[in-house]
């Protein structure tokens, strides 16, 4: 049984002719202990997909299941690392994490909770900054706090929404290694959303490309059969790396990527029906016959 699954999910915003379809036909199954990456264009609905998985958005159609059971709204069983860190600026690092820990493990002793918080600060190597506020930290450090907060809730799955998007290249590489190290230590299920194919190849077991919107959908799963730990310097030369990279890029850049664009328009037909000459002549004062319904035509563009 998959840990987390989406079936036939469709979501959009607005209604009527102004409706903007973001995602359609989303099928997704994540197994226990897997590291899955979803790669897609910016603006294709990656964050919408993550918000769906986190329970912050409800799908218009289809279902979200956690361990085979319909998942209710958001909860700490799905830890989320947001792109913009989402730390509470008036709390210190310790307090930010303690807020989550106190909420998720209310039955623990206060000392046990404090030790738990310390352990996760230690895990992301922020012990010296434990009493600082987010405004005193660099972007990379803030994202570490966000990661520690999500992990400290001991979620069934860790959802990461472009966690390294706002970081410089060196910090990003550093933090990527860190996330993989933590994941290897705990073997918790993880889902990474990113727009960087190389990042996905470096970190994930399996890559799902997301086509460009509107109406984006997931492409076929591409597995990354590379042994761990992966070395980012020698990785590029391995045949399976090249193959997986090409498959993902082919989907993202190739014809399958763009959703079929269909234009539907209302056909403007004369309001009056032609007179039927075979039948009996209608009375001169009878109201003219009018068309009962309008017609539309749909043209698919290629």
């Amino acid at each position: 049984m998959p840990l987390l699954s989406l079936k036939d999910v469709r979501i959009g915003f607005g209604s009527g002719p102004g409706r903007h379809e973001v995602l359609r036909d989303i099928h997704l199954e994540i197994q226990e202990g897997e590291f899955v990456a979803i790669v897609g264009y910016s603006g294709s609905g990656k964050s919408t997909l993550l918000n769906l998985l986190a329970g912050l958005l409800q799908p218009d159609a289809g279902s979200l299941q956690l361990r085979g059971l319909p998942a209710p709204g958001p909860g700490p069983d799905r830890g989320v690392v947001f792109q913009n860190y989402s730390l509470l600026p008036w709390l210190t690092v310790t307090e930010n994490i303690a807020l989550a820990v106190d909420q998720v493990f209310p039955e623990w002793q206060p000392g046990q909770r404090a030790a738990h918080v310390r352990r996760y600060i230690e895990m992301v190597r922020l012990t010296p900054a434990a009493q600082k506020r987010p405004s005193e930290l660099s972007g990379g450090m803030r994202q570490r706090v966000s990661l520690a907060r999500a992990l400290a809730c001991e979620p069934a799955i860790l959802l990461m929404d472009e966690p390294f998007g706002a970081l410089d290249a060196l910090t990003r590489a550093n933090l990527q290694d860190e996330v993989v190290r933590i994941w290897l230590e705990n073997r918790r299920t993880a889902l990474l959303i990113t727009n960087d194919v190389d990042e996905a190849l470096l970190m994930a077991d399996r890559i799902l490309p997301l086509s460009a919107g509107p109406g984006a959908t997931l492409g076929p799963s591409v597995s990354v059969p590379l042994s761990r730990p992966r070395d980012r310097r020698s990785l590029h030369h391995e045949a399976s790396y090249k193959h997986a990279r090409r498959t993902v890029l082919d989907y993202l850049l190739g014809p399958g990527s763009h959703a079929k664009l269909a234009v539907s328009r209302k056909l403007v037909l004369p309001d009056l029906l032609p007179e039927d000459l075979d039948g009996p002549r209608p009375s001169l004062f009878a109201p003219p016959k009018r068309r009962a319904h309008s017609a539309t035509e749909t043209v698919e563009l290629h």
Partner: protein
Amino acid sequence: MKPLQRLQRFFLESLFLPAVGLLLCLLLWQVLSGKTVKTTVRDDFGDLVTVTKRVGLSKDLPSPAETWAASKTYVLQPWAKRGELDQGILAFTWLSLKLVAQGYAIALILGTPIGFCLGLSKSFAKTFDPIIQILRPVSPLAWLPLGMVLFLSVKIHVPGAGAPYTASELAAIFTIAVCSMWPTVLNTAVGVRAIPQDYLNVAKVLKLSRTKTLLKVLVPATLPYMFTGFRLSLGIAWLVIVAAEMLTGRPGVGGFLWQQYNALNYAHIILCILTIGFVGYALDRLMSLVESRFKSV
């Protein structure tokens, strides 16, 4: 920048230029004000009499020197109490501040929750926003008579606080509360609406209860806005007290001002105006200090 240069700049910008401004204003005041001229004339009966006359652009306006001479006692003995309406200037200020503090406290206690409700609930906002928009621009001078009517037969006796509240006292407190509430209400509402979705997402993902979300996320996130509202409210409360005291004739800076106007002691009016200005400035500085403490977080 060299230390000497910095010192020069400090003298120029913080001492010299403000002093120039002050001198220019005093000069303008001196030019506008009148002076007393004594002439000796022979009257119709042939006696020599001294006639005192005031001349000048605005001949009844006392000059700076005359103002100081007339106000000296009030400033140099600031806590003196010679009579109910004849006290030192700080004694009057203290009386006014006590009343302001009570009205302002009521305004904050009522205004903040109303602001939260307005910001959190769309239907609450739709229900009460028109009323608030209509009541907000009403002048304190209009609220005061209503307050008098409301509290005419109400007797509030706080144990251990001496004499019971009089109707005019309660009316003044009511007016201050009603008039100074609105900036707090509106700023709190704006602050609640401006809370980033991220913070609310955190609360949702952690499944914080409603009370916990309010105390741990909503209130801290709104504090900077709330304090801007508190500061504006305090400014208004201080404006209103003067009007309230003038109308009710209660002892205080405003009451003193009005009484001295009726007694033709024009110099004291200027003394009161300056006092009101200085106290208002001090209150605003105090609040902005508190505000910046919360904004820096």
